[in-house]
């Protein structure tokens, strides 16, 4: 027999009525009438409730403006009560933190570290990888690459087989034939010398198609874009200039339009100014001057595949459809199957090199965030012991379990909110540091900043972690009602919580071990990599690159004459012990490959190889060892016998087990005889394997693009300045493109590795520190709790040493189990590191042993410090104080 009205109906009514007297009276009236009824009273009650609901809702809605309505009078009170409660809880939380300052400070710093580092990494990852490119509808932009499938099998060429550019005539064909894109565009950058009163200056110049700005969806801020008819060779010389040049040289007014610029002795008329802050994403330079594509001296040939291309997909066209068309068109004049096309989303293409390493850092920071959360949870559990009494008192005074839970969660949220604020401040600083540390030419790094998205990330991270990791401690604490406390005694209760806390610390230790193993692997890998010899000696080696204009040095002989003079003159500088010149000096550029013929077993065979043009003494200046034969000398002139040097890799590949000396190579339709074999020199990076390379005497070729190499004694910097000055003396119209230290260039190739290693190591160390502090804390607390027991043991004759061991033991067992757990997880987790490791496997036993041993030592240390207190316990004094 149901005595009361239907509970659900009653509950419904309670929801729509403001709590208070009015509601109570209404419910009472209904019940009073309900009990007098006999039949169908439940249905009657339901009818009443359903009839009441809309009217009450309507009336309450109408009364919403009425500040003191009966239907609302309880509403503000209701809202106020929650606001009050939040305020009370918050104030209470602050009072608590003020009272327990050490706890609050440690917790805040921990949260700030976790949130700050995660937010900083997120900001970088977001700016570089996640956010759309800064153009309208960036998802439509794709980059197009030419592919040469037959390059795949060739060690000298395979690096680039699917990332080949287009020649300008190729681009014109593509633009005319394509149907899948709204527009296609191409660019190529070069440098030109601009001579004015101050002397010669080298300017980065972009050769851009007139379609480039419209394809990107960008318009000049002043003036106009190129016209299609201005593209091509021998057309009127027009130029767009960058914002910086416009302001610095042309006063930043529209009067700049129509003014002229001289580049390589050609006069260009300025027709427009590019927008401020505009740059082509992923382009390593920000050219000050744009000139129409096709105007370069090499642009009429199909051989110079120098143009980078992008395109904007028509709406509704998929990447696959467009790629089919591109693949067909990109055959151009080549035989079928030799040349194809490939499309990649531009954003992914630009950021392809940093995607994996940045995601790795994101994982590492997530791991650190997790560790800090567990750390705070453990801290809160540790706090529990101090709060049992307080919470029991509150519950005895009538606070319900939910009320206490809410109080504890509010404390969590306050802690997290403060931590997030601190963390955000930290993130501002850390993001700037990360940008500074980032490897040179990290794409889009200029777009990185702490912004609203970072803020949202920090806030949600803080809230989620507060709730998830505050829940467990809060639940165990809220369980403390006065009765339990009395029945169990605070010791048993805190012991239960203690085991949860120990588990938290073990988990934290395990996670820290995962990070430590990862960081140690990266450090060891970087160590190995930097120990690799590049095959030459980059220390105290200077690369000096003058820029010779084609127009002033049209003949190869003029070009060489300049270099002859320059090399001889620089060799005579004080502090220079040797000087020579080489095309594509190691670690300077993409190298240069070519196809040659060689004789093997009486058969002529076409092979691909890297090639360099060298001056005499190149090999002694660079300190490249000579394996056999001789080097290039002054005697190898334009008219003497054609000779060539090959490297060990080439000799081993084509003449294994035989001497390469005396073998013949057909280069540029002329046969050359191998007279020497040199050691292998790395070109692209220390982790790359040697590529077959041959060296030709400069006197016997027409090749340009030589770099002067100087071996210095003493300070290379002093020589650098003197070298610039000397070159200016030789020919003031020749600008010096760059003077660089080879060692710095080699070092720069390690920038990626160094960046991720530094950050991961930093995270790992922070994790280790937090974990050590956690271990210290747990031992210290257990010492405090068991001080009496220890005193009794000592009083009964236990040696302090034994007491010490007893106290340390628990923590060490905890540490060991955590470390073991972590090592097991690391075995699986560090697999993601495989692509980042050089000369070491993710399962490297030494690393594991080192980290494990380090963890054990740290654990013992963290346990031993507080345990000493137990061993020094004065029995009499302690027992008296109880």
């Amino acid at each position, binding site marked *: 027999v149901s005595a*009361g*009205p239907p509970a659900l109906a009653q509950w419904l009514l309670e929801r729509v009525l403001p709590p208070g*007297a*009015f509601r*109570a*009276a*209404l*419910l*009472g*009236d209904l*019940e*009073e*009438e309900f*009990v007098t009824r006999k039949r169908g009273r439940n249905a009657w009650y339901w009818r*009443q409730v359903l*009839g*009441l609901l*809309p*009217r*009450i809702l*309507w*009336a309450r809605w109408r*009364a919403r403006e*009425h500040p*003191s*309505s*009966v*239907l609302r009078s309880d509403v503000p009170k209701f809202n106020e009560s929650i606001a009050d409660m939040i305020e009370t809880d918050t104030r209470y939380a602050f009072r608590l933190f003020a009272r327990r300052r050490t706890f609050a400070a440690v917790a805040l710093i921990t949260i700030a570290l976790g949130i700050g580092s995660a937010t900083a990494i997120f900001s970088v990852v977001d700016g570089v990888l996640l956010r759309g490119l800064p153009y309208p509808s960036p998802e439509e932009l794709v980059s197009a690459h030419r592919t040469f499938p037959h390059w795949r099998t060739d060690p000298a060429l395979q690096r680039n087989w699917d990332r080949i550019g287009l020649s300008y005539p190729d681009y014109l064909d593509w633009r005319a034939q394509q149907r899948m894109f709204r527009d296609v565009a191409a660019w190529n950058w070069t440098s030109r010398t601009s001579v004015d009163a101050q002397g010669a200056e080298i300017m980065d110049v972009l050769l851009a198609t007139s379609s480039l700005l419209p394809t990107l969806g960008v318009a000049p801020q002043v003036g106009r874009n190129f016209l299609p008819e201005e593209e091509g060779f021998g057309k009127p010389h027009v130029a767009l200039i960058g914002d910086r040049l416009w302001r610095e040289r042309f006063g930043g007014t529209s009067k700049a339009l129509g003014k002229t610029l001289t580049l390589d002795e050609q006069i260009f008329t300025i027709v427009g100014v590019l927008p401020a802050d505009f740059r082509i994403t992923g382009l390593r330079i920000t050219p000050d001057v744009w000139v129409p594509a096709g105007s370069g001296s090499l642009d009429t040939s199909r051989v110079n595949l120098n143009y980078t291309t992008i395109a904007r997909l028509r709406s509704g066209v998929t990447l696959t459809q467009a790629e089919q068309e591109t693949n067909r068109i990109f055959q151009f004049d080549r035989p079928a199957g030799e040349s194809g096309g490939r499309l990649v989303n531009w954003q992914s293409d630009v950021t392809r090199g940093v995607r994996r390493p940045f995601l790795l850092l994101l994982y590492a920071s997530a791991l650190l965030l997790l560790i800090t959360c567990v750390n705070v949870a453990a801290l809160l559990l540790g706090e529990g012991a101090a709060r049992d009494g307080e919470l029991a008192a509150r519950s005895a005074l009538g606070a319900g379990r939910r009320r206490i839970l809410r109080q504890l969660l509010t404390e969590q949220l306050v802690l997290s909110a403060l931590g997030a604020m601190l963390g955000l401040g930290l993130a501002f600083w850390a993001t700037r540091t990360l940008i500074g540390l980032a490897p040179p030419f990290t794409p889009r790094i200029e777009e990185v900043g702490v912004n609203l998205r970072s803020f949202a990330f920090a806030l949600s991270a803080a809230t989620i972690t507060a709730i998830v990791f505050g829940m467990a401690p809060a639940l165990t604490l809220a369980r403390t009602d006065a009765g339990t406390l009395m029945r169990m005694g605070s010791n048993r209760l805190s012991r239960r919580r203690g085991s949860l806390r120990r588990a938290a610390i073990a988990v934290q230790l395990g996670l820290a071990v995962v990070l430590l193993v990862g960081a140690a692997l990266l450090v060891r890998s970087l160590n190995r990599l930097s120990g690799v010899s590049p095959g030459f000696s980059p220390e105290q080696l200077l690369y000096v690159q003058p820029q010779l204009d084609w127009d002033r040095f049209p003949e190869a002989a003029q070009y060489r004459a300049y270099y002859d003079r320059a090399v001889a003159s620089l060799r005579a500088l004080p502090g220079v012990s040797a000087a020579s010149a080489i095309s594509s000096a190691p670690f300077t550029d993409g190298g240069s490959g070519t196809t040659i013929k060689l004789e093997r077993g009486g058969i002529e065979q076409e092979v691909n190889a890297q090639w360099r043009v060298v001056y005499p003494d190149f090999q002694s200046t660079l300190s490249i060892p000579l394996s056999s034969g001789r080097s290039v000398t002054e005697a190898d002139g334009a008219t003497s016998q054609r000779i060539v040097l090959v490297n060990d890799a080439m000799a081993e590949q084509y003449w294994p087990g035989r001497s390469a000396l005396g073998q013949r190579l057909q280069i540029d339709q002329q046969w050359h005889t191998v007279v020497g074999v040199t050691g292998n020199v790395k070109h692209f990076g220390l982790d790359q394997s040697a590529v077959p390379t041959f060296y030709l005497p400069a006197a016997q070729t027409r090749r340009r693009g030589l770099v002067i190499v100087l071996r210095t004694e003493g300070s290379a910097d002093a020589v650098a300045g003197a070298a610039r000055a000397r070159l200016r003396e030789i020919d003031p119209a020749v600008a010096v493109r760059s003077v660089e230290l080879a060692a710095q260039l080699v070092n720069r190739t390690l920038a990626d590795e160094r960046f991720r290693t530094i950050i991961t190591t930093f995270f790992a160390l922070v994790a280790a520190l937090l974990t050590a502090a956690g271990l210290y804390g747990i031992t210290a607390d257990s010492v405090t709790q068991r001080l009496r027991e220890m005193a009794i043991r000592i009083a009964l004759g236990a040696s302090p040493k034994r007491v010490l061991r007893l106290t340390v033991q628990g923590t060490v067992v905890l540490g060991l189990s955590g470390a073991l757990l972590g090592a097991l997880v690391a075995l699986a987790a560090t697999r993601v590191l495989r692509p980042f490791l050089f000369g070491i496997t993710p399962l490297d036993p030494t690393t594991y042993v080192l980290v494990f041993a380090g963890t054990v030592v740290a654990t013992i240390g963290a346990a031993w410090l507080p345990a000493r207190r137990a061993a020094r316990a004065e029995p009499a004094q302690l027992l008296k104080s109880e």
Partner: protein
Amino acid sequence: MRHGTFEFAVLLVIRQLGEDGYAVTIREALERQTAEPVARGALYTTLARLEDKGLVRSRMGEPLPVRGGKARRFYALTAAGESALQSARARSVLEWRGLDGPLGERP
């Protein structure tokens, strides 16, 4: 029934019931006098509105087991309620007189 008229009827019944009127008895009396069923929602919202306007005041009685431990809310007229009732009566008299009343005046 016009809104103002219903309010007037409720005020009248509260006055008749003296200090003992609460929603259940008020509703019974209303139904008796108007010989029409009174919607529960209309009564409660009207009571609330009258109270908001300061025409009636309420006090809570003792909690009663028969009401699930809840108290009755007794209603009584305030001074403002009394004068409102009187002016409503006067207006109603004018309405009865029809055209005798000043033009344009509305209750």
